[in-house]
């Protein structure tokens, strides 16, 4: 059940769902900032403390301060300050398990777009920043996780521009034929309403789980292509109090990232949007029962798990 005290934004929802996918002892290759990096950081704090991550600029396994201090940077207390080429060599050589990225459009084979909307490359309807490091990450990491909002205009049969590769045309060996490393490819798409994977044979996107606050029907209505649906469809739990507490008090207390400068979903300042869409403010009472330390948080979580 959704706790009456808890309300959350879509960005927080994305971040928390993403965090739950994080695995112990794995390496994650990300860009600094935004829900993908928040998801990795939250996952590292709550579920997989020994995961390591590298940033596209060359930072390897940083330990930034939480809560952030004035002088905090994404590369604080890293094990290495390498450079852009070096971490790409590492990814190409197979050291990077997961890419975690966001996109403005994705198709049913997991190809995604961060470059432009429109059909004429030199005269786009709207130009975006470009690939950045997304193409290399989605090409060379073993698995790619996308973190993005579920919307009809984003989940499309054909993206306007393939910035980064999914399974390309979906045919067996398509990535290898394009010169990409073998056995790599898209793995999960985390959205605010559902979790997706890919069918191993057809490489088509597949609904794996649907939020308990919505329904499969409503999820499908938010997509412009029809995905496969897993036989054992799971239910997504909403963000837990612990996740939100960790996110709001430790990782981003100033809401620099959670507010999401480009988010469509920012509620009036200090507010959050409830799953139903109604804006609300987190009840102060919800903080009362918060753990005093990270250790206590982990212990409590372990107890919670045993209890259920």
């Amino acid at each position: 059940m959704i706790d009456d005290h808890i309300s959350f934004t879509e960005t927080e929802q994305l971040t928390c769902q993403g965090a739950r996918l994080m695995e112990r002892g794995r390496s994650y290759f990300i860009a600094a900032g935004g829900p993908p990096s928040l998801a990795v950081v939250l996952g590292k704090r709550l579920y997989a403390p020994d995961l390591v991550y590298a940033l596209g600029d060359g930072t390897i396994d940083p330990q930034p301060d939480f809560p952030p201090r004035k002088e905090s940077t994404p590369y604080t207390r890293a094990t290495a300050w390498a450079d852009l080429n070096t971490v790409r060599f590492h990814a190409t050589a197979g050291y990077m398990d997961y890419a975690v990225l966001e996109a403005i459009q994705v198709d049913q084979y997991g190809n995604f777009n961060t470059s432009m909307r429109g059909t004429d490359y030199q005269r786009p309807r709207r130009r975006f920043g470009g690939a950045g490091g997304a193409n290399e990450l989605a090409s060379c990491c073993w698995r790619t996780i996308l973190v993005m909002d579920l919307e009809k205009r984003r989940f499309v049969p054909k993206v306007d521009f393939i910035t980064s590769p999914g399974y390309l045309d979906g045919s067996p060996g398509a990535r290898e034929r394009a010169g990409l490393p073998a056995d790599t490819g898209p793995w999960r798409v985390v959205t605010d309403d559902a979790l997706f994977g890919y069918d191993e044979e057809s490489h088509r996107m597949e609904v794996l789980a649907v939020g308990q606050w919505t329904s499969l029907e409503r999820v499908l209505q938010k997509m412009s292509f029809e995905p496969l649906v897993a036989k054992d469809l799971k239910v997504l739990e909403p963000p837990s109090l612990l996740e939100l507490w960790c996110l709001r008090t430790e990782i981003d207390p100033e809401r620099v990232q959670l507010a999401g400068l480009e988010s469509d979903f920012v509620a009036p300042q200090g507010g959050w949007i409830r799953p139903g869409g109604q804006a609300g403010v987190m009840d102060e009472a919800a903080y009362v029962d918060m753990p005093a330390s990270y250790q206590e948080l982990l212990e409590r979580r372990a107890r919670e798990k045993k209890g259920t």
Partner: protein
Amino acid sequence: MVSLQVIASGQGEYLPPDADGFRRFIRDNKPRGQVEKLMPAAEAVQRFVQDGCYVAYDGSMGYKGPSTILREIIRQRKQGLWVGAGPGGLEIPLLVAAGCVTRVDVGWMNPGPTIQQALNEGRLKLVEWGNGGLSYRHLAGAMGVPFLPMRFIGGTDIFEHSGAKLVKDPFTGENIVLVPAIYPDVALIHVHQADRFGNARIFGPGYAPWERAASAKRVIISTEEIIEPQEIRRRPYLTTIPYYMADAVVHAPLGAYPGHMPGLYLGDRYHSVDLVEADYSGTIGEFLEKWVYSVASDEEMLEKVRQEPPREAAVRGLSRLTDMMLASSVKEAFGI
């Protein structure tokens, strides 16, 4: 026996990777001895940045970039430049608005109305490579070879709009992407410390500073601090770029402003936000006038920043010049 066979080619434009031409240029133009190269930003840009040339720079106006030199390029109203943005930032809309840049090799750049409008009017042409593709091209240039194989961009529209080729690898018979080397006319690299000959040290992660310097015909080093040559020899393991690549050494304290320089200062996000707002409100011309054209140099610009009235503390997380300093010197920041 498998022969190298081209399977697909991107349509993007690129300068022919003339490795031997580059070698000859280096043979004929770069002094081998330790020669003094200290000069003001204005002189460096006058001498080494020509209209229509290819300008590579490392970092952006957000992080570690050669902002002082870029502003000087704008001030001198250079035209028809082709730049690499791998990744770039707010300097791209600024350079485009100022009429300096007509072509961008895109890794990443700050989008916005200025770029959108320039594209719509056909004043700006783009070629795609991704950050990795661009830095591999500089790596190839730095190695003095015409191309490098790499295991990304294949199969995508980035490939289609790049100058890359998909070939059958003659060793394994598998398909692989090749990118052409790039030999820029000039590279701009902002560093923490350099001596007057151009031996340079950079601290902090990212991006591809030595590859860009080593692949370029001319190199302008701008530096936070000038240090003595014997200091370079005391810790040779810290030298990122050796002197013989440098053509100019410009002393540029706060030379990455409004960007962040690792260890020394945070970015001035007020200035960056002002620039974004200027872009979106169609007043980027006024921004240029205020911060570039109406001042003779970056020293004057920074003095102007210092005299700016303090802003409301309402916008959390934003810092000003006085507030953004992390350390007063590289020694304080890194113990070096």
